[in-house]
């Protein structure tokens, strides 16, 4: 197995007494697509800032491309591409100019940056917007421009912090398609997300994080197999009646999860569980059978939903 490009051991970041990241350990192999899945405030962004060599760790060990970010920050950053949670494109510059100035930061000569900028605008499907003002772009286009900017130095690792948060479904799918192409080309991707579908689509392997700690680690399918049943039956009885219905449902399926708006029944077969529900004399307002997802894994591990 090739040497990992990122190795974190007991990585901790404290702000005064608060531990934003509380002793997490993971490795990322070259070419891998690795995710940190967790709700807002789980410490994902803080971890990304440490991996991005802009924030120093409080304790633990961290190696990026074999180097310690405390000592070799600029050298590490020269081979990273960073897509931050908040776009920080220069709104005073035109679209293409944003790529030109950014390429210079890596010491690339003007001619090379110009060539690369045009290729990346093509890749980001923004060639026809090259001369547009950044503020005139849609949210999805800004995101794609930020990704193009992050690729200007042909990075060995691309860090994406919540790449599709705030985008509409169509814009998300365009972005996923672009990221998937990068993955196919062998770019190492490290991304954080609180969307389980995003994690399932893009990550070869992920860690589930909550309150600065890792709750579970593995491939999406394996995590689901390990921590959840094959299927889930979702039934709704109306806000005030879910609790009462849950008492009657005891023993249906492998496990029940009562949420404010619905009850989740974890079972091998959702249809069979639904039959059992009606047999017990209950008539749900709506029912839905679906496959288990990472959302269920998170719920199982933390007792909370990802998006609250």
């Amino acid at each position, binding site marked *: 197995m090739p040497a990992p490009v990122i190795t974190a051991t007991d990585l901790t970041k404290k*702000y005064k007494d608060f531990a934003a990241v509380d002793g997490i350990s993971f490795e990322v192999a070259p070419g891998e697509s690795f995710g940190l899945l967790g709700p807002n405030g789980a410490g994902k962004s803080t971890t990304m800032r440490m991996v*991005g060599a*802009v*924030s*120093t760790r409080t304790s633990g060990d961290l190696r990026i*491309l074999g*180097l310690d970010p405390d000592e*070799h*920050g*600029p*050298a*590490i*950053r*020269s*081979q*990273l591409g*960073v897509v*931050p949670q*908040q776009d*920080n*494109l*220069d*709104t*005073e*510059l035109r679209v293409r*100019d944003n790529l*030109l*100035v*950014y390429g*210079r*930061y*890596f*010491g690339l000569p003007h001619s090379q940056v110009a060539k690369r900028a045009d290729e990346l605008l093509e890749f980001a499907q923004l060639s026809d917007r090259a001369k547009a003002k950044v503020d005139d772009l849609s949210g999805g286009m800004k995101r794609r421009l930020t990704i193009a*900017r992050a690729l200007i*130095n042909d990075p*060995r690792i691309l860090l994406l912090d919540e790449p599709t948060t705030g985008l509409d479904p169509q814009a998300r799918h365009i972005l996923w398609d672009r990221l998937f192409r990068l993955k196919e080309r062998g770019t190492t991707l490290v991304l954080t997300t609180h969307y389980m579908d995003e994690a399932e689509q893009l990550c070869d392997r992920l860690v589930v994080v909550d309150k600065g700690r890792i709750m579970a680690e593995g491939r999406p399918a394996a995590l689901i197999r390990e921590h959840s049943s094959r299927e889930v039956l979702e039934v709704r009885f109306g806000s005030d009646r879910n609790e009462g219905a849950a008492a009657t449902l005891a023993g249906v399926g492998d496990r029940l999860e009562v949420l404010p708006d619905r009850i989740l029944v974890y079972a091998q077969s959702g249809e069979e569980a639904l039959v059992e529900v009606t047999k017990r004399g209950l008539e749900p307002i709506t029912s839905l059978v679906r496959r288990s997802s990472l959302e269920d894994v998170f719920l199982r591990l933390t007792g909370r939903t990802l998006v609250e």
Partner: protein
Amino acid sequence: MTVSPLEFSAKSRRWGAWYVTEHKIRQMRGFAGTLIATAIGTPILYLFAFGIGLATLISGNVGPVAGVTYLEFVAPALLASAAVLVAVEEYTFGILLGLKWNATYVGMNASPITARQIVDGTMLFVVLRMFVSTTIYYLIMVAFGAVDSAWGLLTIPAGMLGGFAFAPVAAYAATIEEDRGQFAILQRVVILPLTLFSGTVFPLTQLPVFLQWIGWVSPLWHASELGRQFVYGPTEPIWLTVIHVVYLAVLGVIGWQLCARNVARRLNK
């Protein structure tokens, strides 16, 4: 073949600050027209209003030397205030723009560029902007007949040094988390009184003694007096001229270093 990170970042390590300056120059292109119009229009208006208009009301000597016209007296100070204006604008809005409003500094810092290089590059950019403004100012001063010796050229660096001495303002701006109109207060409570009481349009000695200290701490007074030495001086002992230069340079360097420290703390917390 992959290039090692250390090799890859070597150029950024050496030239990083310049790349930041380059970025800021490119940003400026968007409103270059406004900047140039201001840089040309302001000196014409001010020199006309003070040097020609107000001067008609002023008879007798203004400086310690006979034969110095009011235009000659006021022009170097106006040039210095123009440099201060440019510098303070960049040290306040420019800094907070990069850290907060249009967080380009955060983006720069995600590349090999360090917080120090960001500040160094910004400072260099301010120097260049001041150079353009003061040079235009100087040329217009010459056109108005406010300079008659080649020594006068040195009012350009004198004015720029005055602007640079406001670098502590940049260090302060780098600590602002929430914008609650601090810059407007700074303009009205610090910069404006300094402009009025720094011997800009009348000699400091005209002020009551208990107000003259304002001039002594004001970088603008030091820069104006320095400029005057080159336009019609020397009118003061050489040690005082040296003090002007040292005082301005020290203030500037302290501000610059504190600014680098504050920006690093903020970006790398």
